[in-house]
């Protein structure tokens, strides 16, 4: 009968399929790994108080790690989707536009100067760093007319990221903490604990909820700013809130996983391919697809060369780079 119905009814199925896929990936991720475990071990870990080494390992090592992969994947993807919507730049990604590099530099600073900072403090430092990185990149963009063109922003992002990462490395070498820093650079979910998740998950949940609430406004904004004003949107407060959401999501993700590009670029495009251009649908779909992708990439990293870890950042980059090039090619006029 109506446009709305034709679009939303299948959307529920699409989202449900995504969630089923996520559950499947999650079970696979819990079973697979360096240590030999079976479906039964996973079952026991959840259903009983059994304290066998397999159950304990699953509960205390694998499960928090899978949870981390899920929230980080969702956070990076949603933040990428919002960035692409606000900037109308198909190449926007928190990893490419200096946010994650800024967060990492802030993390290095925090580790050195405030050693007692704790996990909450580290997370807040990551927010500040992400904000600083983003402001630098968009500040460079604002310096001249037309500076917000997709390629210019990506170039600015690349240079600012290089600078901030070099800064982080420098601090690492000078203060002899490069081992800790490079653990982050490798983009590992290794050693994520429940207590870390307790700090991060509320931020990411809040960020995703706010973005869902503003998703209709984001769609209007993604048409064009002039159209949004004409339709009666208060664009300045809406953009400010969305910008804060991007920073919280990207910063929280870095606090767990370190510097990780491409997830935020790739996933929203996949989600758009599945559900269309309405951000009310893109955002939930991005969250679910991002979680699946990150979980799969991390599991692959753990099992590819077990018992050694293949850095998840490398796996994501191998998947992401061809995709980046494909968007550049496909985007043609939209990108340049």
């Amino acid at each position, binding site marked *: 009968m*109506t*446009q*709305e119905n034709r*679009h939303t009814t299948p959307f529920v199925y699409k989202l449900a399929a995504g969630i089923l896929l996520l559950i499947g990936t999650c079970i696979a991720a819990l079973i697979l790994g360096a240590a030999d475990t079976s479906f039964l071990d996973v079952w026991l870990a959840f259903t009983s108080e059994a304290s066998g080494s397999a159950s304990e390992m699953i509960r205390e090592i694998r499960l928090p790690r899978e949870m981390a992969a899920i929230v980080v994947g969702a956070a990076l993807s949603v933040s990428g989707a919002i960035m692409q919507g606000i900037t*109308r730049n198909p190449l926007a990604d928190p990893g490419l536009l200096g946010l994650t590099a800024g967060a990492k530099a802030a993390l290095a600073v925090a580790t050195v100067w405030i050693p007692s900072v704790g996990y909450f403090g580290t997370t807040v430092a990551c927010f500040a760093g992400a904000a600083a990185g983003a402001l630098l990149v968009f500040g460079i963009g604002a310096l001249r007319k037309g500076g917000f063109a997709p390629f210019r922003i990506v170039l600015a992002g690349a240079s600012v990221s290089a600078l901030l990462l070099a800064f982080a490395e420098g601090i690492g070498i000078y203060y002899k903490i490069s081992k800790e820093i490079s653990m982050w650079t490798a983009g590992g979910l290794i050693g994520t604990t429940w207590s870390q998740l307790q700090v991060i998950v509320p931020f990411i949940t809040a960020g995703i909820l706010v973005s869902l*609430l503003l998703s*209709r406004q984001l*769609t*209007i904004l*993604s*048409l*064009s700013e*002039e*159209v949004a*004003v*004409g*339709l*009666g*949107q*208060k664009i300045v407060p809406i953009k400010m809130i969305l910008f804060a959401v991007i920073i919280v999501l990207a910063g929280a993700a870095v606090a767990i996983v370190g510097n990780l590009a491409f997830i935020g670029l790739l996933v929203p495009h996949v989600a*758009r391919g599945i559900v*269309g*251009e*309405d951000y*009310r649908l893109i955002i939930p779909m991005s969250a679910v697809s991002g979680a699946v992708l990150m979980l799969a990439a991390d599991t692959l990293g753990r099992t590819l060369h077990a018992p050694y870890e293949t850095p998840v950042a490398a796996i994501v980059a191998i998947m992401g780079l061809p995709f980046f090039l494909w968007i550049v090619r496909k985007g043609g006029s*939209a990108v340049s």
Partner: protein
Amino acid sequence: MVRLSTNELCIGYGSRSIVKMLSVEIPDKKITTIIGANGCGKSTLLKAMTRIIPHQSGAVILDGKNILTENTKTLAKKMAILPQTPEAVSGLTVGELVSYGRHPYQRGFGRLTKKDYEVIDWALEVTGTAEFKCRPVDALSGGQRQRVWIAMALAQETELIFLDEPTTYLDLAHQLEVLELLQKLNVEQSRTIIMVLHDINQAARFADYIIALKDGQIVKAGNCEEVIHPEVLKQVFQIDAEIGRDPRTNKPMCITYNLLKGEANREKKMDSPRTYALAYH
């Protein structure tokens, strides 16, 4: 008392002033056209009248209230804007795009009501775009796309509709199609149409009221007989125009024109357009 007017409006970016002390009243339920050379401030004026860009001083008054103090959503129920060549949004269907015209009437997550659907269908019908409803906007031709954007503006159910060069990039037939649609909306539904046009003959043919701008100031505002006139065109466009009559509509029409040679060069030295208009004679 007209609904929309500007009072000593000044618009500029930084220290550069684009529109200077401009006061004008926009006649209700008429088609008003703003014409002028490139960079004269015609688009800037349209954008300031619709709060898309801020103004430096003066005021834009709608229904007795300054538009800057009015709630932006309330304004969106009174005036709709079609920006110049809106970006094509890949993947959005025509129906979806037009449904965004209901945004000012929606709250929260924005589920469309029965009334919304009726208005959307009506807007598609009036603009002749109903058959494209499920097609992606970027699969349409330029003329069809422009009609879809007009449908979105109509879905806002506003009495005032602003358009910034709605015929740019369209071929001749599609230009006329868009202008005739606007004329129909004006005649049949008493909508007030305010648009920037490039083509003075189109302005003469369709507008009830023409505002001719030069350097951010009004050279002449009035009906087509008063504005499409050699003296006015000389000042506004630096052309020596031959004005005749359109044999079909009997409206004034620029048949041919020459550049005022030498005038363009002299313009740099002399400030007042009047000075060199005299010098030419």
